[in-house]
């Protein structure tokens, strides 16, 4: 019968697909240099669950890749899949028990009940927010003839809420006396998707603008001017293609699209975005969480007036159970996070992130060791 033949063909296709399974391989001999292994003074206890899964913020995706590579080198046969679907998804999947830990741009929220439901997921134990990845956010712009631009939190806020409309506005000119600013409209580009970067950028404007930013924060941009593009890739590409455009975007995207990066003057002179200036900001952060729950008081970073600190950065948390994993998972999660906080830090700068300063690293390692 003809349908039987049809069935046979489908069978053949399926068989073909199964045959395919025989010839795939996961082994990729990394071409780059192996991360320096000597510096890790903390012993890593490998083993446990061989394939961890994590999900969350796309802002830390590239850092995760670096960590995973280091993890595979330290603990052969271990692997981790990081699904960069967004902070909200990360928290949701962590609470739903679909992933071993979540990655989020903001700590678990008490008011939304996330703290309580996360504790439920961890079998009655609190979940900890571990700020493992710090990504500087650049105020990237494209303006012909102006390679060097300094902004204060206040002027940035005025640009992003439409109070300052022209590049040669006196407010900008006052900060950049040497530059020849053109009489051009400022085109603000922002994220159309909901994003932790937007949230943190608005929190920064709120904290640092001396009241010029009244729109509040949140994952949707509230400035009311400009136009929105999807994801970091979209905003960076759009900003790079129009003269006079400005946006906020993770450093790596700004570099890749050849955007100029504004210096930020937080009251004690213009500060360039460098590893040192970001590291200094992280060092100055105060923890408002209790014990090993390392929730950062963002105002201590965004409102910082210490000389030489670049305050605009995005702290990404790994949300883990303090207790309540099964033994295998706990072992692997600990091993992964330990590697991430130690040997995984090498090469982070190349990926556009700020490596952890020593003091902060120690705090994190204490917390990681306490996971049971």
């Amino acid at each position, binding site marked *: *019968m*003809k*349908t039987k*033949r*049809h069935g046979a*063909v*489908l069978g053949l*296709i*399926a068989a073909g*697909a199964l045959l*395919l*399974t025989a*010839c*795939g*391989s*996961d*082994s*990729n001999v*990394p*071409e*780059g240099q192996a991360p320096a292994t000597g510096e890790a003074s903390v012993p890593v206890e490998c083993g446990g669950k061989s*394939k961890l*899964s994590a*999900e969350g913020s*796309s802002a830390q*995706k*590239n850092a995760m*890749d*670096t960590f*995973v*590579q280091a993890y*595979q080198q330290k603990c052969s046969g271990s*692997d981790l*899949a*990081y*699904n*960069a*679907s967004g902070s909200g998804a990360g928290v949701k*999947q962590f609470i*739903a028990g*679909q*992933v071993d830990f979540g990655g989020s741009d903001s700590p678990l929220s008490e008011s939304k009940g996330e703290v309580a439901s996360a504790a439920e997921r961890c079998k009655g134990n609190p979940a900890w927010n571990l700020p493992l990845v710090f990504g500087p956010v650049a105020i990237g712009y494209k303006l012909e003839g102006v390679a060097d631009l300094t902004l204060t939190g206040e002027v940035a806020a005025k640009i992003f809420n439409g109070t300052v409309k022209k590049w040669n506005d006196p407010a900008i000119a006052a900060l950049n006396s040497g530059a020849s600013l053109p009489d051009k409209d400022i085109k603000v580009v922002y994220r159309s998707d909901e994003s932790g970067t937007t949230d943190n950028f608005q929190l920064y404007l709120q904290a640092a603008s001396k009241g010029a930013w009244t729109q509040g924060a949140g994952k949707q941009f509230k400035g009311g001017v400009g136009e929105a593009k999807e*994801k*970091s*890739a979209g905003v*960076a590409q759009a900003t790079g293609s129009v003269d006079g455009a400005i946006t906020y975007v993770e450093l*790596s*995207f700004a*570099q*890749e*699209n050849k955007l100029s990066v504004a210096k930020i003057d937080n009251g004690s002179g213009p500060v360039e975005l460098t590893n040192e200036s970001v590291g200094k900001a992280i060092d100055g952060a105060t923890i408002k969480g209790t014990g090993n729950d390392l929730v950062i008081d963002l105002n201590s970073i965004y409102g910082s007036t210490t000389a030489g600190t670049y305050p605009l950065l995005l702290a990404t948390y790994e949300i883990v159970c303090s207790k309540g994993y099964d033994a295998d998972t706990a072992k692997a999660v600990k091993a992964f996070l330990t590697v991430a906080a130690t040997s995984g830090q090498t*090469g982070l700068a*190349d*990926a556009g992130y700020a490596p952890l300063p020593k003091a902060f690293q120690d705090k994190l390692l204490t917390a990681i060791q306490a996971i049971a």
Partner: protein
Amino acid sequence: MTTDTADLNRLATPPTFQSVSGARKLKNGIATALVYGAFLIAIVPLVWVLYVVVQRGFPVVLDADWWQKSLSGLLSRQQGGGVYHAIYGTLVQGLVCGLISVPLGLFVGVYLVEYGGRSKLSRATTFMVDILTGVPSIVAALFVYTLWITYFGFGRSGFAVSLALVLLMVPVIVRTTEEMLKIVPDELREASYALGIPKWKTIVKVVIPTALSGIVTGIMLALARVMGETAPVLVLAAYAPYINYNLFEGPMASLPLLMTSERNNPTQAGFERIWGAAITLVIIITLFNLLATVISRWLAPKTK
């Protein structure tokens, strides 16, 4: 019943004993010009898209590693590696979805045309299929997420993706099956009944084979659509850079998911992976189309 109308075109020369009026000639000329014009206009963007995909993606897929390896252990900025893990995921998710939706869609189509008539159920089904055509993929994905994962408590997996894809694939198959069955001439059915052949056998051996090439086209279109579908994989399967053979558990990559994931990668390696994955998907679906052509030729009734 595939009619080769081109053969008839030769007969379409104006008859010698009757001259065609100027107005008719003009109309004919305008229509011909419009048809050719439409074709030329359309071919530009279509070829353009394909050209961009090939130009950007082709150099990437020439590497044998591309077809055999995964991206496990590679940094986002490191070139190399392959998309075997995603190819596997796309194929398996697509095939499982096809195995569920093709019979379901076919039967619904057959029901609507051959059995339903104007019954209430038939009208309800048509109504529902119309609605299903309009379900945006992301809503289908959210539905499966709520039902399969939140309510039944299964984990996210490739299979959940297949289920969501079924929702997107079925209406397309039903619609095309319905259209194709409708235009099977009643004379064929009547001839078959006259020979005393039962209805189901008439459907299986006469009606469906006659409409088969159209149905297969519909299935291929549907399969092409679902294999490139991004929203369900975003919601229902987590991305894994390594190979996961298990459809029912754990994160599993697929080509659209890989592309979305690599959109967060601003480096050259990310660019290559996106376009490489695109052309890989096109190649896979081309192979399926070829296969379908062969199958439908093989199964079609011999009319010559």
